[in-house]
């Protein structure tokens, strides 16, 4: 019980928010708008899962928003050239993994701080894309939207895909040795090295995986609309980091559960509609998101301080 205390707190906060919405704005739970809202969050969930792994291994990746944009535009251009979806999806994932590998090589190979490395790659990718596209949208062929399914079927597909990946990752983090290596590396890289684990290799792999998930998320975003906005990833990194931190992933590394990240994504996603229904101006959304992140970080800080005194 105490082990998942942090995750349960977030779940209760989400539940409370949903109850408030149920009382004052039952319209929030109407099927179609709810489905659309959840579908829009599916790519965020995927990226946030990757971000959780990155943060658990005691790194950070702020380039995901830019990589998301690059993967989305490239996938869109290929699709516009009539490449089949079955090829576009793996290519986007591969491109993401490749860009993630650049981050990983710089962080793990050259041992540079990840915040600086990914800041640099974030700016390079974003400005490169701006120069290449001049802000122009990519028009997608008709058959691509919702993978050519009906809107409803497409939405269910995307949500289902996101949940399957979440569940698979949560299972893997617990049941695969790789998950343990990530936790060990984030807790104490030197101790991991002395135990015969390769912390640098682990870190590199985590960045590659983060990139691959970003590439997948970009396609999941792409199929929701008839066009790709090259700026579509702007701010995604903050959303992903926020969801992970709110969901109980410790910024100091080593600790976190993906189910917590799931509730984190949902909690942050509910704030905007809640504000709308409460007739608060939507401008407050970001400020309240920030406040929630601060609250989460302060709660973690107090917890670890108490822990130190106890031992």
């Amino acid at each position, binding site marked *: 019980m105490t082990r998942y205390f942090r995750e349960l707190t977030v779940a209760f906060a989400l539940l409370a928010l949903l109850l408030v919405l149920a009382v004052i704005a039952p319209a929030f739970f109407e099927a179609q708008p709810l489905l659309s809202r959840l579908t829009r969050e599916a790519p965020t969930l995927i990226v946030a899962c990757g971000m959780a792994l990155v943060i658990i291994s005691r790194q950070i990746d702020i380039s995901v928003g830019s990589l998301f944009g690059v993967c989305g535009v490239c996938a869109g251009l290929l699709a516009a050239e009539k490449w089949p979806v079955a090829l576009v999806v793996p290519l986007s994932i591969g491109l993401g993994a490749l860009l993630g590998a650049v981050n990983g090589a710089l962080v793990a190979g050259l041992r540079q701080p990840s915040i600086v490395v990914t800041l640099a790659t974030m700016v390079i990718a974003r400005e490169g894309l701006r120069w290449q596209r001049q802000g122009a949208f990519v028009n997608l062929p008709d058959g691509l939207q919702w993978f050519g399914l009906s809107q409803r079927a497409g939405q269910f597909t995307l949500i289902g895909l996101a949940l399957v990946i979440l569940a698979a990752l949560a299972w893997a983090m617990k049941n695969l*040795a790789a998950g*343990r290596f990530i936790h060990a590396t984030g807790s104490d890289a030197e*101790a991991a*090295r*002395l*135990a*015969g*684990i*390769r912390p640098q290799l682990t870190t590199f792999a985590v960045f590659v995986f983060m990139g691959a998930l970003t590439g997948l998320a970009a396609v999941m975003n792409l199929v929701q609309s008839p066009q790709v906005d090259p700026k579509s990833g702007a701010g995604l990194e903050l959303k992903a980091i926020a969801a992970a931190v709110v969901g109980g992933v410790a910024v100091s590394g080593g600790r976190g559960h993906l189910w917590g990240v799931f509730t984190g994504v949902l909690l942050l996603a509910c704030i905007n509609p809640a504000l709308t229904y409460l007739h608060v101006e939507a401008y407050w959304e970001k400020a309240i998101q920030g406040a929630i992140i601060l609250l989460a970080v302060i709660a973690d800080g107090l917890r670890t301080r108490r822990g130190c005194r106890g031992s």
Partner: protein
Amino acid sequence: MAALLQLTRVTKSFGAVRALKGVSFALESGEVHALLGENGAGKSTLIKIITGAHQPDGGQLEIGGEPVAHLTPAKARALGIACIYQQPALFSDLSVAENIALRLERTSPAHRVRWAQRHARARELLHRIGAEIDPAAEVRALSMPEQQLVEIACALGAGARIVIMDEPTASLTQKEQHLLFAVVRELRASGTGVIYISHRLDEIFALSDRITVLRDGETVGTNRVDEINEASLIKMMVGREVSAIYPPAESAPGDVVLSLKNVGCRASGVRDITLDVRAREIVGLAGLVGAGRTELARVLFGLTPADAGEISLRGQPVRISSPQSAVSHGIAYVPEDRRRHGVILEMPIAANMTMAIHDALFPGAWLRFSAEQILALDFIRDLAIKTAGPDAPGGSLSGGNQQKVALARWFATKPHVLILDEPTQGVDVGAKAEIHKIIRALAKDGLAVLMISSDLPEILGMSDRIAVLRAGTITATFDGKPDAHDVMAAALGQSAGKEAA
């Protein structure tokens, strides 16, 4: 005249470990008082109490005849206590003058810096100790001894009446040592009291007026330097009963498992090591801190791979280039400083124990929790680990039990060679005896054990053979049960050691 500094029956414990059991020590003005003792005798703790970094649990501390309670580092500095550590604590990006000013000036953030004054002050202080150092030089560009001289200049500038020097000559050349001695003598002449810590007996005899020997957190005695000779000093340092009963070796050693021929590693200062370790044998590595014992262990575990000589395992020459290759060759290393790197505190102890045997315990991709639980429960029972269960995080255990978890991780790899670095450091007496029993049982099972320890009775009690390291190489080896005096003398570089094969 009241003593400059007087400690009376000072005690200090860290958890279950009693670092100081009642130390009395007096420093007169205008004297150099040497403090001598084995590693772990309590010297550092005593220094930390004098500088206000630790609070004593009991006893009295008087400075200049006044009892002082609740000494803090700031208060100690204000009372004229300065400490010069082995590793100078200077800001390497700032200039010498800025470093000195930071120590000596207490100003508001808006205060305007008078550069000319700062430089003149620094130049004057450096001149007084005879150091030719440019006040404008960046500390990064200075050598270690030059940095120490800057530290001394700071102490001088602060008007310190009590100067503590912790192994100041450890990294100095002959010429620099003489310069330092001149400075120390000058400090003494000006009425300053100097507490001088060193392992070099010749230095202590050349420089000090009185010598106090600490052992096991107690004062053994204080003598004037002309009343005592080296032999009786060494006897004071080691002359204790081997209080614990160590499990005896019951079987003859087997074949050579690990064989080193002229092994060296330039990066870590280990050179020309030749040593055989046989199955069912515990070889103790003795020596002072910094003699190269841990460095040798790190070479053997592939953390700083050897660049000279030959390492053989069971007759086969091997190259150990990384911890992974060491593990695959059947070498296990339980590092020193378990609190930092021995166990991962956030992870359950079961996961900690299986960390090094993933490939063997979990063939294929995924983990098998039932196998892991069985293994963890076995170790918890066999090693008598006190814990709530296999899922309790490593951080919830006491020091001795954490060490048992670290040991379990490596026993699980079923190694041929087990390297233990300070296996019982910071462990309470009961757990210590249990760990000794475990180590002996493992040796009996056929393991070749290499044990590093600063605890001389432990080395003497546990080892079948002892190799003494000094300055990165083996200077003496002893078969059987040698005299504590001889081992200590070899570690200190005295010729008294009987060289055995």
